[in-house]
């Protein structure tokens, strides 16, 4: 990138000098030079190292715990089946504290200290966006499992991918036909007053309009709020459907207070299960949700028509028929999202094998191989269902589930089609230099 590069470059000093010349001529400006070189000397049986940026502490910890378990299960399955390109997979976990600043540091640590082949696993959008520059600068492929629209918006960079979970814009769009046809035509939205809520605020109204329904009120609730009753009077009386996407630990309060406010005489409720991930649907106060509907990425409760692949996946991760940890019914999973970890790791495996990936010097090839993917068939590697992948915007698109709360369970009542969630690409990462 600059002629000054390498003037103080560490690769020209110390241990790696003699190998620094090898193969680097073409890669002027490669910030990761030392890691690069050392790795190329590694034996072909050395493990593929995956850096897992995990929300072990901070607000994302409930998700992080399950992302960790799903990742462990997927890696075990991959290794038992011979690893990637015949090499075992090793996961190195660093906690990002669900903080974007620390997230960027962790990516740097993976790139320069652990010298991992890729970085993977981030959920919270602000951490993804905060870490993306570090990944791009280190030319480190960065596979997130976030469901945010940030990757598909093409505002990040060429090294960031989301191949394991559909983005929220697509999810919202796919919900609209069902809501308009089954729940009601006059919709009031309640969402958190920050980015996750804005996706819903911005993408739902046009999608509903296309189906002949409309959003009649939008109620944004500040992220610092812990009690919600005072906002409910803003819900218009003619509302037929309340569309809610609250997230965070206060969401139980939200539902409980909505119940106290309306009693049994309530409008239809439609929500995103993000609200209640890792929360028992039978918790006291949630009786109010009975009969309401939720979006689910992957169903929490075992369904009668579950595929063999879905059953095997659930067993491998260790969740029972109620979506809780086997042996601890109180430890409820984040089933609607964590399948994305499993599927992302299989996408990484596929792309590495397509690219003939040998080590960090092949990272660019890995990026191109991932971009070349178009479809993932339903099966043991993709238990949630079939997906298409758009290599230009680095985003996959899959089916979505709509589930009804009945008898203390979530039963899937509708599965969307992939086409329901497709939209015009907003850009093209492949035009960016590698």
């Amino acid at each position, binding site marked *: 990138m600059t002629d000054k590069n390498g003037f103080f470059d560490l690769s020209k000093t110390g241990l790696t000098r003699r190998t620094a010349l090898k193969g680097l001529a073409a890669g002027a400006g490669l910030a990761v030079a030392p890691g690069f070189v050392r790795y190329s000397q590694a034996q072909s049986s050395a493990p593929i190292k995956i850096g897992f940026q995990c929300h072990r*502490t901070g607000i994302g910890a409930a998700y992080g715990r399950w992302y960790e378990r799903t990742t462990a299960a997927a890696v075990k399955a991959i290794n038992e089946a011979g690893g990637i390109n015949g090499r075992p997979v090793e996961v190195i976990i660093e906690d990002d504290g669900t903080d974007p600043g620390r997230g960027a540091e962790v990516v740097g640590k993976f790139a320069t200290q652990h010298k991992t082949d890729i970085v993977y696993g981030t959920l919270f959008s602000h951490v993804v966006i905060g870490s993306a520059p570090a990944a791009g600068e280190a030319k480190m492929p960065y596979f997130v499992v976030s469901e945010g629209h940030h990757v598909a918006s093409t505002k990040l960079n060429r090294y960031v991918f989301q191949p394991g979970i559909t983005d929220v814009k697509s999810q919202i769009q796919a919900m609209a036909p069902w809501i308009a046809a089954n729940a009601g035509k006059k919709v009031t939205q309640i969402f958190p007053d920050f980015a996750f809520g804005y996706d819903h605020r911005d993408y739902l109204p046009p999608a509903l309009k296309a189906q002949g329904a409309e959003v009649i009120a939008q109620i944004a609730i500040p992220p610092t709020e812990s*009690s919600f009753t005072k906002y409910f*009077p803003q819900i218009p009386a003619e509302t037929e459907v309340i569309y809610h996407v609250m997230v965070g*630990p206060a969401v139980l309060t939200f539902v409980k*207070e909505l119940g106290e406010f309306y009693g049994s005489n309530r409008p239809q409720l439609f929500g995103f299960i993000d609200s209640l991930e890792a929360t028992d649907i039978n*918790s006291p106060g949630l009786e109010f949700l009975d009969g309401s509907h939720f979006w689910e990425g992957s169903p929490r409760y075992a369904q009668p028509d579950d595929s063999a692949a879905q059953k095997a996946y659930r067993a491998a991760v260790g969740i029972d028929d109620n979506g809780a940890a086997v042996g601890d019914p109180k*430890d409820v999973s984040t089933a609607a999202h964590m399948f994305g970890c499993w599927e992302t790791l299989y996408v990484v495996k596929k792309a590495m094998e397509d690219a003939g990936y040998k080590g960090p010097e092949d990272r660019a090839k890995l990026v191109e191989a991932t971009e070349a993917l178009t479809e993932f068939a339903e099966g043991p590697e993709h238990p949630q269902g079939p997906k298409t992948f758009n290599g230009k915007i680095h985003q996959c698109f899959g089916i979505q589930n709509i589930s009804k709360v009945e008898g203390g369970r979530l039963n899937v009542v509708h599965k969307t089609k992939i086409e329901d969630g497709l939209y015009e690409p907003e850009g093209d990462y492949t035009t960016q230099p590698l």
Partner: protein
Amino acid sequence: MHFGPHLLLAALEGLVTSAVLALTALGLSLVFGVMRVVNVAHGELFMLGAVLAWAISTAISGHPALGFLAALVLAPLIVGLIALVAERLVLRRLNYNPEATIVATIGMLYIIQQLALTFYGPEARPVEAPFSYRILLPWFGYSGYKLSIIAASALLLVATWFVLTRTKIGLVMRATQYDSETAQAFGIPVDRVYAGVFALGAMLAAVAAVLIVPISQAHYLMGQDPLLLSFIVVIIGGLGSLRGTVVAAVLIGLSDGIISVFFSPTLAKIIATLLVAMVLVFRPQGLFGTASR
């Protein structure tokens, strides 16, 4: 909904917030006022109260009120004991140096948070309310339990006021607050008073948490907001003034509720915060404080 009922609802919500805030802030105010140290871990002691309430109430089967009552008694005692140990082991050795205390209590904050994460987990868990009576008003329904929080908090505040102003313990505490050296000279065991005050402050936070947890949930990161709000309440009310603390808690709770009726929520928070800050800018000693020393 019409404007009147909307305002009533906002006011009720504001009062519930105020009730819990007043108790939490009172705990901080005692510590701050008597010991002159900032306890950054105060919010974590609040969180600990909520987490213990969950643990105790799930351990006791039967009617939810049993578990809740047990939690209301036991959780504050345990939290008070923990605070007492922390005070003896750390704060006393620091001679209550204000700056060192900040670092030490930040350390405690990390420790308590991590222990809660390890042993309780990252999930938000609810505690069942002792009773679930829903009051039906002509315009909307309202939780009977929430109203009982206001009553319980008022009761506790009156009790604290009584202890502070009408008993010997209160006299000793006030003397220590007024001038610890003179108090020492008059044979007041300042050292023990400090320990007691620190434990009492923690217990008040824990009680507030047990009261709130049936309408909110126990979560290991729930301590930050109460900490910040309590600080604000204590200073706005005027350091060491019980009356000021209560008035400030009501003021902040209500303004938060009512301003949200008129403005978009985030804007409402901005305005409310700015207004309260301006009160302090133009009345630095707080509403009921004497000039700061």
